[in-house]
């Protein structure tokens, strides 16, 4: 998850170092990473967007981007009416967009509770390895779900694991960072999609008012 300099060169993450400390799993982790690098994650195929997509909760093209996005930019509105943006891992089951937030970083949760209007953009071709690459901004209402901070978010683990397999390593050691794993779920219901074909944001986006979401 985080990197440190070891011996003057970047040799991996703290996660890897902890692996080494606890179970010698660094070799395992690196070999897995190497295997994946050799295979290279296949870029997703993004279907074209159509006007019929407005009837859907989330258009297939948007879902395809969400499925591969490692990071999106969640923008909320603070108490002064100004935008505040947080890079987060977006997850989706095809209906809603989910993000999770540790209580350690709870300011965004307070903002959402005060003003549920948010947007999420997928903008970075490195963090969104889609082919062809498009840019999208999803506007909608967010809801903070925190009935069970300890385990409620774990229903999203399969989606999270697919993007960040190392989460299992950390979860097994949640005793070391217990507050990090007390997490709220942010459920985003999409209302409007701004779609920039091929990522060309100098052009006017296609706008979809999602009737299916209502």
């Amino acid at each position, binding site marked *: 998850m985080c990197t440190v300099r070891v011996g003057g060169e970047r040799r991996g993450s703290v996660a890897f170092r902890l692996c080494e400390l606890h179970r010698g799993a660094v070799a395992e982790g690196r070999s897995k990473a190497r295997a994946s690098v050799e295979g290279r994650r296949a870029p997703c195929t993004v279907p074209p967007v159509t006007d019929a997509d407005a009837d859907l909760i989330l258009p297939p093209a948007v879902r395809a981007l969400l499925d591969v996005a490692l990071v999106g930019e969640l*923008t909320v509105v603070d108490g002064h009416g100004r935008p505040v943006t947080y890079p987060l891992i977006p997850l989706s089951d095809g209906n809603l967009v989910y993000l999770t937030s540790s209580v350690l970083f709870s300011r965004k949760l307070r903002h959402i509770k005060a003003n549920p209007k948010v947007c999420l953009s997928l903008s970075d071709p490195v963090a969104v390895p889609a082919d062809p690459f498009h840019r999208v901004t999803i506007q909608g209402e967010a809801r903070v779900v925190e009935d069970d901070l*300890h385990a409620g978010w774990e229903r999203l683990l399969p989606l999270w694991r697919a993007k960040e397999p190392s989460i299992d390593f950390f979860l097994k050691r949640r005793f070391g960072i217990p507050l990090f794993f007390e997490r709220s779920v942010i459920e985003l219901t999409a209302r409007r999609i701004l779609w920039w074909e091929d990522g060309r944001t100098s052009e006017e986006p296609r706008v979809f008012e999602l009737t299916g979401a209502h």
Partner: protein
Amino acid sequence: MARLDVTDAVARAEGYPHTVLSYVGPDGYPVNVALDFTTSGGSVVEVGPLDPHWRPEQRQDVELTFSHIHPQPGFGYDERRYVNLWGPAEAVGDHLRVTVRRASGWDEADTPFFEYAERGVPGGRTYLEELDARPRLSRAWTFFLATRLPFLTATLVPVGIGGVVAARDGVFHGVWFALALVAAISVHLGLNMANDLFDDASGADAANVTPTPFSGGSRVMQYGLVTRRAMVAGCVAFYVLAVGLGLFLAAERGWGLIAIGAAGVALSLAYSAPPLRLVTRGLGEPVTSLGFGPVMAVGTYYACSGRWSWHAVLASLPVALLIALVLYVNQVPDRAGDEAVGKRTLIVRWTPALVQKGYVGTVLAAFACIVAEAATGVTPWWTLIALAAAPFALRTIRGLRDHYDEPYALIPAMQANIALHLVTGLLFIAGYVIAVLG
């Protein structure tokens, strides 16, 4: 996200390939648009080109976000960093000129994730309290953390040495040895909890934002896993058990044990409790040496045999020096927090160069002790096999040299240092066992 100086933040932003413009649209929803950008004048960022239908009002406050990750297939990603800039925007042709007034961000190369998370603990606790929620952890894990159970190796080694010295003298007794071991473990666990209580009261643990698995205390109170009252109860329970067992052993094996046990309890409390708080006076190492060396070894020998042994004292000296080094090295990442609350350990008082020389000198003294004691017949020749643990010292020395200022990169060195004490101690004990059986 931490507040950044505007000029510094804009300079950091220059390294990113694009930015995300955010503003609140007329319908109240935020709008995000990824754009190219250029910087000029230290606090001005120009973004665009931008479609005229999707731009903020003149002079509207906008945000620019610069975000980076490095995907690691099969793992996730690393090299996370981002910068947020805020300020009013003015249209200039098909571009926007943003005059940056505020900035924040995070770069895990500067602030490692675990430190970043640790800095969020006070806010997280407040948020949980507002929800009337508490973090959860199984009782077993909570006990494991609160007592810092893995550090019991510090007790097992000197008690084991007391036992094998007794065995060599033909006075080993399994039941008395086991009771002495339980008493020593109880004192140690009570000491660990007392140390946490006093470090919590002084603010030392709260001031430490770079705890590691080997330093920074158990943090169960900082994380809200255990209340202060429960911690006090656990601490008292362990001391009561230790004192009770000590009194029973003294009654059965000889009242000399009272003096040894009293010394052990007194040292364990004086280490962190006022008024002495010896650890804050740079005396933590000698106190630890005494308590987890001669006191435990002789106490065990006495419990087995009913008499004092200078051999047990001498045999415990090498591991006494090495356990002091465990404390010594584990205080390196704690030194900023310790200094902030006036806990002036040797590490706080000394320069990094002196700390490293102190480490090398003490390791050499410990190994010299092993050789000298074997050469003079105090200990069996077989105890020389303990010298095989020397590579752990080399790893620790290298770690201190290369990563003195990097708490997380120092973790392998701290681990090697703990292994140095444990492996040296176990091999030393094995040497005795071989000699006794041979």
